[in-house]
């Protein structure tokens, strides 16, 4: 079973978020989980890394690196 961590947030901020939530997010926990997953997503960074490596390889092939 996945372990959870308890965090503390200002009540006023949580109340504002609760009022703002729509059908997409059941509750505040679901919203925060989604946001953290988005922030931790490495899809974009992996593509960037692969592209940088491709160009460096080209330069190596030409003997410039």
């Amino acid at each position, binding site marked *: 079973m996945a372990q959870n961590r308890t965090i503390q947030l200002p009540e006023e901020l949580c109340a504002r978020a609760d009022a703002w939530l729509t059908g997409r997010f059941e509750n505040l926990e679901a919203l925060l989980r989604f*946001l953290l997953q988005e922030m931790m997503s490495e899809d974009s960074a992996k593509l*960037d890394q692969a592209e940088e490596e491709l*160009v460096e390889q080209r330069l190596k092939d030409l003997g410039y690196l």
Partner: protein
Amino acid sequence: MKKCSLVLVTVDCLRADHCGFLGYPRPITPGLDSLAAQSVVFTDAIVAGAPTYFSFPGIMASRHPLSLGRTVLGIAPQEATIATALRYAGYKCAAFVAGNPYLTARYGYDQGFDEFHDFMDAAVPTGSPSDEASAVSQLNRWVERLSHRSRLTGASYDELYFWYCQWRTSRKETSLDDLRRYPAADVLMQRAIAWVKGLAEERFFLWIHLMDPHHPYYPPQEALSAVGASAVTARRARFLNAFWNRGDIGPTRWHRFRDDIITLYDAGIYWADKQIGRLVDTLRDIGRWDETAIAVTADHGEEFLEHGVRYHSPVHLPEELIRVPLLIRSPATRSSKIGEVFSHVDLAPTLLECVGTAVPETFIGSSRWTEISTGQMSAEPAVIECLDGCNNPFQMKDRLRPRLLAVRDHEHKLVIRFGENGDTMSSIKKQSEDPTTSKGLAEKKRAQFLRKAAAHLRASHNRKAEPELRARARELRYEIASERERS
């Protein structure tokens, strides 16, 4: 240096080679030609990205479109732009944008403006089905699926369906104004002129984005008459646009109406040119011309089958798309022509120095104003980038596509297609842009371009995380707000 007001006019889809002052033989830009005679004209201005959503971060925020990460669309919250810099310097700032959905507050383009008018309520989405058509559409979709079980019946269905649709729509009277998807330049200019006239003595920054040359091509009748196409009716224009938009045929058949389509496109340019002339006349009439700098450029060009492709999709980076007109008229500077490559990432810093305002530190580009004023601009290759095939960046998954990157100087262009693990060098000077293999060109030049590309990618990779996070958070807020409105 006395500080000037600044006007920036951007014209969507305006090709450099369709401007009279850059050699186009058809007289569709008399106003810009006259303005060019008093301006610094850049004959090799290059965008930072294409199309609009990849180009404008370069124009407004002096950076490449993917510099904050490929998931960021538009301007990040709190990102410095030419508007925020001028507002900070005490300018009154207003923007009038002709209904382009990528240039809205949702994507940060309102930052720095006291007034931001996107005319989105005046823009009409293309292809909106009517209630009457929806039941018929369902039947058609079913027949279409059946027909496309074989290539022959599929092609026959598509052809019949196209002509059936033409017959149906031709039964309804319509006008060019009704068919137009974006507000025409005169609508925007009316509002912009009223705003300028309402100012007291304040210095101002005015940004106007015109969509008249953008497809579907429905210029005003007056513009059609001016380009010698007075016989083109709304019905004819609708047919031409529908035929040009067919996805079931290819270049050989599109080519049949290519000249007619270009005429519609040119008429759109004519109309934009005429309205820009109105603004210039107004600035003269109200006595502000001698204290106002004006820059006119485009976010990208347009293709008309030069490479078998229409419109302005980010599937390659041809000259027709990436080379744009650019002129800067400043009261203090005499007219000249600059032949060196000028990248759009240098535009905002250059304009800020032109009007005597500090350039934000976050701008990647540099001001070239001093070089321009002394007539000695150094040659620097430009970087152009987009996401290969990203035609719908509203969808996040469409932004996770491989990069398409080009490095271009005055003579050559290296295009790297990361999705295909390939690169091509070609010569700009040749009439046709037939790609030659890398073997055919000096290795040294290719290595120089590759090093520039590597440095560009490294800088992007080493970016700060906060702008990207803020931009994603803003998009999420808009998505949720839209869902709330719909529910």
